[in-house]
Every structure is written in structure tokens, then in C-alpha cells.
């Protein structure tokens, strides 16, 4: 009888530990996927407003960063931008753990000048 009770206690303890680990893990996953989704929402919103095209074709990362921040989708998250054409990239890649990168392709503004805007989202 005493042995059975100890077994039940152990099972309950195991479940408690399991729940603890599951909550920790699921919270981390939620944050990561949510950061990438927010990154795409921010890029999509700035793109639809037509706010990125001119700045991106001039490789102006500061202006693109500001336009993306203005969308409000990245509140509470850190972000930075790099802009790459066929040969070069300008901008800052964050030196941080758990960084999520979202991309947007643009063919230029008035003239053909293709670039990839890469948005890095991370926890401050």
C-alpha cells in the first residue's frame, strides 16, 4: 500500500515537471514563430503603403527601418534591415541570439534596380 502511494506521488511529480517543461518550451516557440510572422506583417504593411520602394532602391536602410517601425507591428521587438542588390548588401545584421529574418523582393522604383530587403527581428 505504501509502495503504491509512492508510485502515485512519483507520477504526479512527473506530470508537474512535464507541464513545467511543456509551458517553457511552448512559450519559446510561440515567441519565435510570432516574431517571424510579425516581421512579415510589418514588411507587407510597409510594402502595401508604397513606403519602401523609393528608399529601398536608394539602399537607404535608415529610412526603410523607420517605415517598418511606423507600421507598429514590431512593438516590443528589436529590428534591423539589410538591403541587397545583385552584388552588395548594406545594413546591419544583429549580433543577437534568436534572430528571425523575413525577406521582401522589389524590382526598383522608376528604373529597374532589383533589391532584397531583409528584415531581422529579435528580442531586445
Amino acid at each position, binding site marked *: 500500500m505504501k509502495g503504491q502511494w509512492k*508510485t502515485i506521488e512519483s507520477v504526479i511529480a512527473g506530470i508537474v515537471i*512535464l507541464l513545467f517543461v511543456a509551458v517553457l518550451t511552448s512559450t519559446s*516557440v510561440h515567441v519565435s514563430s510570432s516574431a517571424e510572422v510579425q516581421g512579415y506583417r510589418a514588411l507587407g504593411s510597409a510594402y502595401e503603403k508604397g513606403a519602401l520602394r523609393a528608399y529601398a532602391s536608394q539602399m537607404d536602410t535608415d529610412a526603410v527601418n523607420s517605415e517598418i517601425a511606423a507600421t507598429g507591428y514590431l512593438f516590443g521587438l528589436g529590428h534591423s534591415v539589410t538591403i541587397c542588390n545583385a552584388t552588395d548588401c548594406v545594413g546591419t545584421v544583429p549580433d543577437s541570439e534568436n534572430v528571425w529574418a523575413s525577406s521582401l*523582393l522589389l524590382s*526598383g522604383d522608376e528604373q529597374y534596380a532589383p533589391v532584397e530587403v531583409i528584415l531581422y527581428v529579435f528580442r531586445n
Partner: protein
Amino acid sequence: MIGAVFICALLFFGIAPAIQVTSPPSDDMDFLAGNLQKEMPHALNTGINSSDPLGVLCNFTGFSGDAVLGRGIDLGVLWIVFMPGDGDVNVSAGNFMDSGETVGVNISGTYRDIYVAAGTVNSTLFTISGYTFDAEVTAGGESTKAVLLSNKTSIYSVISMERGEKVVRKELLA
């Protein structure tokens, strides 16, 4: 002792599925395919401005393919451009899929097959009359019909993205 075994078993079976959840999300393919769907017509317009619409489209398709390859995505694009002239329309098909494609084009009742080898562009001329013309295209397993303007360059495209098991396909007509 039995309790300890239970704990180990529960921890193992509990953590294993949680680790699988951390595989990267594939929303980027939907986003990027939608991005290209909107951006290809813009690339065509910049090409018209520089009097090299097909060259610009070829370059932008290649640039996009290289960019998404960095995310492990295999991009395939097939586009057909209708460039009306004086009493005719030049139909050009660019094939950036993995293999050769036969594009079926019907312009106001005249039907032709255009074979386009992978990574190349092939063109043919159709006679048209009036302010509009009927166009029907069968390409890349997709088919579409449209009434196009005789004074405007138009594009139809099939965009395909693949990464592992996941495939995203989108069409555009502009």
C-alpha cells in the same frame, strides 16, 4: 523505482513532440509568392520604361530565384508577355521552370503551341484587330482566358515555390 521509470517515460514522450514544434514555419513561401505576384508586373513596367521588357523580366526572375534560394526555396516561373504592335501582338514566353514547357496560346481563334526550353524565351507573332483581343493561355498546368487591350502590354505568369514537401503556386494576370 517504478515511479522513476514513469517520470523518465513521461519526460521523454512529453519533450519529443515539443521539439518537433520548433521546425521553421513555412509562411515565408506564401508571403514571397504573393510578393512576386505583385512585383512581376512592376518589373515589366520598369522594363518597358527602359525599352527592354523581356531582358528586365529575365533578370528579375533570376534575381528572385537567387534570393529565395538562400531560404532553401526552389523558385520556378513561367511568364507570357503580350506586346501589341500595329495590327499584331508579339507573344513571348519565358520559361524558368526546371524543364522545357509547351505553352498553348490562342489569340482570337488562332491557336499555336510555343515550345520553350528551360531558361530561355521564345516569341511568336499573332495578327489582331480592334481595341481588344481574346487571349487564352495554357501553361505550366494552368489555363486562363482574358480580354486584353490592343494598346497595353500585358503579362500572365505562373509562379511556383517548393521547399521539401511544401509547394506554393500562384498565377497573375496584369
